[in-house]
């Protein structure tokens, strides 16, 4: 896997040199754009971490853990609900699960799949369309939910069948 990352970086830089593009300058431009996106994300992330911490520490999670047979089910459910809203909070849940159960355990793989195979639908819908200034209609939400539903069903199916 290290080779994929290093290959991607090296190929980009070598092509930059061959085409005589100012790679350093465009790298910095990209960093600037990326950090703006991250700074915009910060407020969303803060709100989310706050809610997640509230829910985590009020004890309802522990009570649910005592009720259910598999201890990771509530966490996966929360991640499934959170994933279409914000990428950062889904990633924080994923890292929690990694720390708790180990990187290669069943729940960790489950949450990796959830994180990798869908994207922040509601965030996109509100942020993209409001910043460009497009009126949305209700039908779009149904199609997005349909997509999310399909991917969740497929993930559960694959996880239960193969791992």
């Amino acid at each position, binding site marked *: *896997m*290290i080779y994929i990352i290093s290959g*991607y*970086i090296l190929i*980009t830089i070598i*092509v*930059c040199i061959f085409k005589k593009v*100012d*790679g350093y300058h465009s*790298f910095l*431009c*990209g*960093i600037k*754009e*990326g*950090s703006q*996106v*991250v700074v915009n994300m*910060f407020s969303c992330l*803060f*709100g989310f971490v*706050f*809610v997640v*911490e*509230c829910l985590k*520490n*009020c*004890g309802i999670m522990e*009570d649910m853990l005592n009720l259910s047979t598999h201890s990771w089910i509530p966490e996966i459910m929360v991640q499934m609900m959170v994933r279409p809203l914000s*990428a*950062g909070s889904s990633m*924080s849940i994923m890292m929690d699960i990694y720390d708790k159960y180990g*990187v*290669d355990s069943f729940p960790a793989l489950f949450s*990796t*799949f959830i994180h*990798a*195979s*869908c*994207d922040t*639908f509601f965030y*996109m819908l*509100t942020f*993209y*369309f409001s*910043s*460009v*200034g*497009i*009126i949305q209609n209700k*039908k*779009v939400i149904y*199609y*997005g939910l349909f*997509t*999310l539903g*399909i*991917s969740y069903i497929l993930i559960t199916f*694959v996880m239960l069948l*193969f791992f």
Partner: protein
Amino acid sequence: MNKLWSSFIIFSFIYAIFSHRIEEMVPELLLVPEKTIQLLFNVGGLMILYTGIFHMAIDAKVIDKVGIIFKPIVHWMMPNIQNKEIIQLVCANITANLLGLGMASTPMVLQILEKMKKDSNSNQITKEMVLLLIMNVSCFTIFPLTIISIREKYHSNLGIYVWLSLICITFLTSLISILVTKWRYHDIHH
């Protein structure tokens, strides 16, 4: 969003009061800024790095070269779009999704939406925009770079079976949802 957020917080406070955990809860809440910044450094830093490299790839026209493969798909998906610039950008967006860099393509999607809005001369949502959104949500991935690098931080790699099933899941999701959207979605004309 507001209602959900506030009701969750009120609910958890009431639950904490009734289950006598409020004394442990409040000190934990005061650690939220610290945790958020930690998360931002972990996740946001990676994202910024990939955005930077991706920007370099765009400037070196690597992405355009790779994106040409997807031109027929884009033509089939959005037959109404004739503007060459939009098609090129959509191809680049597909390439970003293939590399698992959905976040890095945020400025690109905004650019595409702006151009589409200019072409359609109205502020109503069109079928092409919905298709673009669905394509980004179901993100068909071949090399999930972000996930790979997070797992690399935990000293573990992506097993070959996990990788293959990830490709299958995202491919099937994208195929089904794009087909359904293409056949079932119709614009509302005013």
